[in-house]
């Protein structure tokens, strides 16, 4: 494993060096005016710009990145994007399939609208039957006034991206759950916790991983041995009792936000070991490189050598690792919820929504309740595509 890492890391170092040399050489001779602009760009670009260019060429990764940005925007502006709050209930419209959006009313073209719904219980099958009342169309309104909310808990506002306005039947794009809550709005609100658990959790495990891995990799010897065995111990303890004990040990009086941060910490507490190993492996290889030696000879302190001289040697690799660790954390949150150890209702996360959908009735008769799962799968895929794109872009040999 370690030889593998060292060979790869060498290539990334030598891969970027020629550009610098050539740039210096340039001052020696006269410049050919006809040297094309594109060539010039190519020569003087720093490695980061190169990665960016290569990444932009990776269409799938680019598209994924755009979609991820949209998802995060949705999470940030959840109050505005979702037509209802996460706990709002449509009276009498429990377990309703997604609202159908029409454009024809009484045979003539109309702006997109919805009909009112009538719910009846079929006494034979015990299923609810929803029938549309086709007498009056209710147009879908954009930037419309709706339920009042506090943007980020600060400013009271009423404007929503879309809705049907007051007095009109509700528009529930993903249908409603067993309490009549809008699954679309809940998905958007849920993304807030789920997406940020990924980011924060990974950020914390990143910091832990880099620090501990850095120390282990740079000092080597006994320090390394001790840390490695410690990681062995940590990794070998099955996650479930570990999670359970930690989440059970949380004070019960904590509110949703505190629990959220605690769960983030719990996910991070077990997530750092992988990164620490990567960092260590890279450092073990890199510290033998000439430039680390040179810095040492020049009298730089060890921590300076680690963080100023060695770390940048594989930052790109770390970024890829992070990108790929975020979806793991998102999935981790859903797993915790499944075990009943994660975020607790009435707080909403994708894990909570998935736990709701872990229901045979949903699978067999109300498939729309599974839509939040598509968001989880989609987000994990998007992160993976972006991660792969970044990895390909950061690899100097990939032409």
């Amino acid at each position, binding site marked *: 494993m370690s030889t593998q890492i060292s060979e790869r890391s060498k290539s990334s170092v030598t891969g970027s060096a020629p550009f610098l040399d050539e740039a210096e050489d340039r001052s020696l*001779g006269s410049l*050919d005016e006809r040297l094309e602009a*594109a*060539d010039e760009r*190519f020569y003087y670009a720093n490695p980061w710009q190169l990665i960016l260019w290569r990444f932009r060429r990776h269409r799938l990764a680019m598209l994924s990145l755009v979609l991820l940005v949209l998802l995060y925007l949705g999470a940030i502006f959840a109050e505005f994007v979702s037509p209802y709050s996460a706990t709002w209930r449509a009276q009498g419209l429990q377990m309703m399939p997604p609202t159908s959006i029409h454009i024809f009313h009484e045979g003539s073209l109309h702006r997109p609208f919805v009909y009112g719904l009538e719910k009846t219980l079929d006494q034979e099958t015990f299923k609810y039957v929803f029938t549309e009342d086709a007498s009056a169309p209710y147009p879908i309104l954009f930037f419309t006034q709706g339920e009042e909310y506090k943007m980020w808990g600060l400013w009271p506002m009423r404007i929503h991206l879309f809705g049907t306005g007051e007095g009109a039947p509700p528009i529930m794009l993903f249908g409603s759950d067993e309490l009549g809550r809008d699954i679309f709005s809940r998905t958007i609100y849920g993304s807030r916790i789920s997406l940020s658990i990924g980011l924060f959790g990974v950020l914390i495990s990143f910091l832990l991983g880099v620090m501990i891995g850095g120390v282990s990799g740079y000092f080597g010897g006994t320090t390394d041995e001790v840390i490695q065995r410690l990681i062995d111990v940590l990794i070998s303890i099955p996650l479930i009792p570990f999670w359970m004990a930690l989440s059970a040990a949380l004070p019960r009086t904590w509110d949703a936000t505190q629990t959220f941060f605690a769960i983030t910490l719990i996910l991070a507490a077990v997530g750092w070991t992988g990164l620490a190993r990567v960092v260590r492996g890279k450092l073990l290889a890199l510290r033998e490189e000439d430039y680390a030696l040179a810095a040492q000879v020049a009298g730089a302190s060890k921590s300076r050598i680690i963080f100023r001289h060695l770390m940048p040697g594989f930052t790109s690799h770390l970024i890829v690792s992070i990108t790929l660790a975020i979806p793991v954390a998102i999935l981790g949150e859903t797993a915790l919820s499944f075990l009943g150890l994660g975020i607790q209702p009435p707080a909403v996360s994708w894990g909570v929504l998935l736990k709701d959908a872990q229901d045979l009735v949903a699978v067999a008769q109300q498939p729309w309740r599974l839509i939040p799962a598509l968001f989880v799968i989609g987000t994990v895929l998007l992160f993976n595509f972006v991660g792969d794109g970044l990895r390909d872009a950061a690899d100097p040999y990939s032409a």
Partner: protein
Amino acid sequence: MNMQTTNNVLVDVQDLKVQFLLHEGTVHALEGVSFQIQQGKTLGVIGESGSGKSVTAQAIMGIIPSPPGKVVGGRVLLNLPEEGASVRVINVTELPPSGAEIRSIRGKEISMIFQEPMTSFSPVHTLGNQIMEAVQLHYPDVSKKEARERAIEMMRRVGIPRAEERIDAYPYQFSGGMRQRAMIAMSLVCNPRMVIADEPTTALDVTIEAQILELLKDLQKEFGMAIMYISHDLTVVGGVADEVMVMYLGLVMEHAATDELFDNPLHPYTEALWRSIPTIDGDIERLTPIRGVLPSPFAVHQGCPFYSRCEKRIEGVCDQSRPPMIEARPQHWVRCFLYTE
């Protein structure tokens, strides 16, 4: 553009064009390269990195990495004498690159020695395994034992001491020089008609380099194979080659017998190369680097590719069209407007 009478020609490269289609653009790696290699003779190929010398070698072996590499024009003809007087002529560029026919040539008729003896062997297989493999690939009838004997014999011949023991050693247990000797043993174990040595001594220190060069010359005398010796080092090529070809950005700039080229370098690029290397008796201060930078590999050159760095360039001429290859002196070809009428 024949150097000599053609009856002994082993390799005949005709107007070879190779491009690499990369995302950043197209690299014109070879822009029409022609030359011949005689049986039992040594052709030295000189050039900076990116000049196309390694691509030329790969084209002869049919191992241009594809994608992104692609032969877009020209031919590489191999004249393989068969029993009797007949000659089998094969156009390498037309063969499927991983087909059986080209594979029967690789390693058997033409073999290759690479620059990096460190990485040219698989680290997890013994040297013996890798050398014997070359024998067994081409002589399926040869038993494992015979193949092993042959490998030991060849290792002994290239000067590896205690070959019968060391055949079971792993590459990392060999020094750089020894590894390169093993490489040579592997390339010669099937008694090929030609060996392409792609900068075989670049990674070695000077004394080892001399030993390896000596060894190659001895082996050529013994086995009579042709050698295509690729290097960026004029002095090394001068020591081994019968004739020398100078390449720059995918074009042959000058081609002549070794002595002729060394005595009368014609092309400004060759001259520049000549000046940039120290000689034992030379004056250190007279060393001058070639000015400017190697143009981007993606650049398309309408005129002479050396134009941007040439000290003798003729504006309005050299940058307008590509200079032709002309026989400026007997058996001495050069691609430069300075020698056109």
